């Protein structure tokens, strides 16, 4: 299952990789929220262009970005395509087949949603490519996210790899005895997937008992944090970058607002 490649996305030699995770999270959320507030597809596209520019400057490969766009492509397409035919009042043309009206406002709104998604996904991918999940969780600890949530998440993340390997092993074992060949039929295949997942759950349950024992045997009593992170002070230079970014966002929103007038 190649979709579980958390490190495949990582750009380890980028200068963005070294920046403080807390700052990156705050900036990412701020940029995405600003994008959401945009009302013109031109400004959204400008943000997208800026992101691509930053990615190129910081040696972040864009291939994973375009790959990750494929996944939500369906949802964006459905939403954007519905717009021109349903939204607005100024019809500019009609479709030849059902003679559906095409509205100017709908076309523009569709383009806005499309470009907003383009830009927002790009920003998120930039963060994901330059920040390992563990660092993000460390930053969340600084933001006082409840420890129960972080502990569960970290423990879960740790075992995703183990269980994924186990799942693949069971899957291969099923395949090697023709569990997914044509003669089984689609329903049969689905049942075999069901058995695979059932087995996986039962094995995980047994493993959970063993893991629990291993935790207890090293003195875990459920009160304390399972994991803690070291914290470093935020370098002044990075704070400065953050301030510059926020000013740029303010400017962007202003431009977008002026375009409306």
């Amino acid at each position, binding site marked *: 299952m190649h979709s579980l490649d958390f490190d495949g996305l990582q750009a380890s030699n980028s200068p963005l990789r070294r920046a403080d995770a807390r700052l990156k999270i705050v900036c990412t959320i701020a940029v995405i929220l600003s994008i959401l507030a945009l009302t013109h597809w031109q400004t959204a596209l400008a943000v997208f262009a800026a992101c691509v520019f930053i990615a190129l400057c910081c040696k972040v490969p864009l291939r994973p970005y375009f790959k990750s766009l494929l996944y939500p492509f369906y949802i964006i397409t459905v939403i954007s395509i519905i717009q021109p035919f349903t939204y607005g009042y100024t019809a500019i043309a009609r479709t030849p087949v059902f003679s559906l009206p095409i509205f100017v406002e709908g076309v523009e709104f569709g383009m806005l949603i499309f470009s907003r998604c383009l830009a927002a996904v790009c920003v998120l991918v930039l963060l994901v490519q330059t920040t390992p999940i*563990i660092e993000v969780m460390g930053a969340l600890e600084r933001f006082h996210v409840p420890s129960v949530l972080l502990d569960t998440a970290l423990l879960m993340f*740790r075992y995703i790899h183990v269980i994924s390997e186990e799942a693949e092993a069971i899957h291969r074992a099923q395949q090697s005895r023709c569990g997914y060949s044509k003669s089984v039929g689609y329903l049969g295949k689905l049942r075999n997937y069901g058995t695979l997942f059932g087995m996986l759950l039962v094995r995980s349950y047994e493993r959970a008992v063993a893991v629990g024992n291993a*935790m207890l045997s*090293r*003195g875990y009593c459920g009160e304390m944090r399972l994991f803690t992170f070291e914290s470093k002070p935020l370098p002044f230079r990075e704070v400065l970058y953050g301030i510059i970014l926020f000013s740029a966002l303010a400017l962007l929103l202003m431009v977008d607002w002026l375009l409306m007038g």
Partner: protein
Amino acid sequence: MNHVIETIDLCYTYPDGSKALENVNFAAGKGDKIAILGPNGAGKSTLLHHFNGLLMPTSGKVKVLGLDVSRANLDFVRQKVGLVFQNPDDQLFAPTVAQDIAFGPKNLRLSAKEIEERVKWAIEVMELQGLEHKSPHKLSQGQKKRVAIAGVLAMKPEIIALDEPTANLDPKTVNKILELLLKLNRELELTIIIATHDVDFVPLCTDKAYILNHGKVVAKGLLKEVFSNTETLRNVDLRLPRITHLFEILKVKDNLPVSNTLPLTIGEARREIHRLLGRKNLYSN
């Protein structure tokens, strides 16, 4: 009272009624190296889980450093007896190696400085330098095993109990772990208890053995004694070490004048061969 671990008539019955241990009397002195041998399902792991207070006896007693194991002193027992699980993936649950090793000391409520020192020490002892910030799923099986042992060592136990320490490891890693364990035993007088069915490994790292079958101790004593009783070994689905088996064949089938105590390791076998050939002083190098 010089036993670091002792069980007295230990019985354990699983909630479903099946008997896992029956009247087990086990004792380990400080600095001992003891093997618990037995086939799959003999109750080896169950016995180890009692040493650490993960399981409580149905009847009988478990004593650690002279203290009866009870709910009240679990923290003490778990610090003194380190348990290394068979599958390191069950034991390494933290996101990085260093964090995993720090898990035990942190539960002991040590100061941050002390925790850091212990983690550093355990990493050095288990020769894991450079892996501190790796996540466990990126390590090889052998590295994972060493991290698992380091995580237990960081609690500074006096007894370390390992469940099938050689399972799924390549020969070189087995040697490495053996070497590290022997060093710990020599330098820190750490008591080592190994539950295994790897009879070839046992003579290399232990000098006493208990043989467990269907939850009962069927033989115990020095390795020489235990392995001289081939009948019992085979009855419980174990075998002699390969090299010992060879000498048994030489003795019984080929009528060679092999001494009564069969060699258990390659070193002992070499000595025996030289003796048979009438050479006396050749094995000094």
